[in-house]
């Protein structure tokens, strides 16, 4: 939002544009319509190119955070982070996953220096965070919003009072605070709850207050530490939708930690996998989810990409193998290879008998991918040739050892 105003002095000068736009946006959403048409033309033009959907694929997309050789050694001797190198790009939703204790929270908290790394450098918007003095750091933290698993709302303040808090801290005049709080209440759909206390609203509503509060100072990035872990699945969906919406419409960068792989699958663009304080791998969600290279990633993703062969299917496969020559293959395909009739072609060309055992096809952010487990019967030489052919069609072939 800040960026909009900065880059659009003309629009900002007209006053209240942001609030009119937010109102229009909400109304469009309420009518179930397409919100993009609710954007005023100027804003739409500016938002479009920076929007995550377009910027994220570019390697050239500008970096918001650059972490180099980040390490964190806690007092007790725990090496929570070791040699972490990663960039977080402007406008993207960046996921961090890993087992409990892998260092996810520590990594996220180094981004706003709630945790000071013991090694390495962090740049935010090209500035070296570690050289800032206390006052500069406080100033900068207003540009980095944060939300929490347990919301961390002040029980002594109403919903509106909580949202106003960061503005009060920043010394924003009271008249501005009132308007801004109303805009934010509308943004997160909590107008009705404005005068309630946190103990009088639901968990999902509390997290909405958390989001509104984090957005109050118009940050460039929102850090989320397990923001949906304390919520039921339905509420999780609505919070994710809100985050995705904010990311898309406002071009806000989001960094999120979660144990729920569906969350990453649903809204993240890129993901980093932490393991014992190390960065195991990172890449686009499409790549990591469909072709994980590390064992830890495969383990974490087991629940969303059904790589396990069910026991019943195993038994069936074992019986098939006993009854004759053949192999069990797992075929993994993604992207365009989904559409190729490679299996049928291989069967015809090499005279294979193929028996389908198990499989699924899914879609991760527009990229189709899937896995099939088949029993292929034939002589060894034929099977080798067939496997090579299928591989040539961009389908990975793994022999499954039962």
């Amino acid at each position, binding site marked *: 939002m800040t960026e909009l105003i900065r880059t659009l002095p003309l629009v900002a000068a007209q006053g209240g544009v942001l609030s009119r736009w937010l109102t229009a946006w909400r109304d469009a959403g309420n009518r179930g319509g397409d919100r993009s048409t609710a954007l005023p033309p100027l804003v739409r033009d500016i938002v479009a190119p920076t929007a995550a959907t377009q910027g994220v694929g570019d390697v050239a997309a500008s970096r918001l955070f650059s972490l180099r050789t980040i390490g964190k050694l806690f007092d007790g001797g725990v090496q929570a982070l070791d040699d972490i190198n990663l960039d977080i790009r402007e406008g993207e939703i960046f996921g961090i996953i890993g087992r409990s204790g892998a260092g996810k929270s520590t990594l996220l908290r180094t981004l706003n220096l709630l945790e000071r790394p013991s090694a390495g450098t962090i740049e935010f918007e090209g500035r070296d965070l570690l050289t800032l003095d206390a006052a500069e750091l406080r100033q900068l933290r207003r540009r980095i919003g944060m939300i929490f698993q347990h919301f961390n709302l002040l*029980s*002594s303040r109403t919903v509106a009072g909580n949202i106003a808090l960061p503005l009060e801290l920043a010394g924003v005049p009271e008249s501005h605070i009132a308007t801004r709080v109303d805009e934010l209440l509308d943004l997160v759909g909590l107008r009705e709850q404005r005068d309630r206390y946190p103990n009088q609203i639901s968990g999902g509503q509390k997290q909405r207050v958390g989001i509104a509060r984090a957005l109050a100072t118009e940050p460039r990035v929102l*850090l989320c530490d397990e923001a949906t872990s304390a919520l039921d699945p339905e509420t999780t969906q609505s919070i994710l939708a809100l985050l995705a919406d904010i990311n898309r419409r406002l071009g806000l960068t989001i960094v999120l930690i979660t144990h729920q792989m569906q969350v990453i699958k649903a809204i993240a663009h890129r993901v980093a996998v932490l393991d014992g304080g190390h960065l195991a791998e990172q890449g686009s969600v499409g790549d990591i989810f469909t072709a994980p290279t590390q064992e830890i990633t495969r383990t974490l993703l087991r629940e969303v990409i059904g790589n396990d062969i069910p026991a019943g299917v195993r038994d069936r496969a074992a019986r098939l193998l006993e009854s004759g020559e053949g192999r069990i293959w797992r075929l993994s395909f993604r992207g365009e290879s989904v559409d190729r009739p490679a299996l049928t072609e291989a069967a015809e060309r090499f005279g294979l008998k193929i028996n389908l055992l198990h499989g699924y096809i899914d879609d991760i952010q527009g990229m189709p991918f899937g896995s099939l487990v088949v029993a292929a019967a034939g002589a060894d030489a034929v099977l080798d040739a067939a496997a090579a052919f299928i591989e040539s069609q961009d389908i990975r072939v793994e022999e499954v050892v039962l």
Partner: protein
Amino acid sequence: MSPELLALFQTSLLETLWMVGVSGAIGTALGLPLGVLLVITDQYGLLQNRPLNRVLGVFANAVRSTPFIILLVAVIPLTRWIVGTSIGTGAAIVPLSIAAIPFVARLVESALREVDRGLIEALQSMGATPWQIIRTVLIPEALPGIVAGLTITLVSLIGHSAMAGAVGGGGLGDLGIRYGYQRFLPEVMALVVVVLIVLVQLIQSLGDRFAQRLSHR
């Protein structure tokens, strides 16, 4: 009960209220900041300062472990220096306040420790200064607990004020001892006890209700 005795009773009640009120106010005014300091200078505190924390802690413990009747006498030189005399109601207020300060401080400290660390982190992530965190989170969030602590302080000050007679401070306790006990007037003693019970009851229920109203947990 004779009219003179009734007048005496009224004076004594006012003396008690005066001693408890003033020392309670002074105890709060100095004990609250001391409690805050004890928390923020502690390890992992907002403004960690172990030596200062140690010194303040020792002071609080020393005062709190001194029996009040001894404290009353021990601080006489200080009392004389502050009030100009070591006898009377005004003089009793000095030791009462000195006893109240660490009492309030420890109760405030434990109320502040109840404040979720996550809230402090949330404020830090917003770029709040330590003072802003104290003002907008620590104290408001701990306020119900602080009010409960102040209620306890007032009640125990009423108890302590009964010993004020030792320095000629007057008050209900003194009346009970002098007339009820030394002059064998059991009805005076009974009345003193009843009034003290009602007073404590009143303070406690007002304090509870106030704390309850402040709490939104």
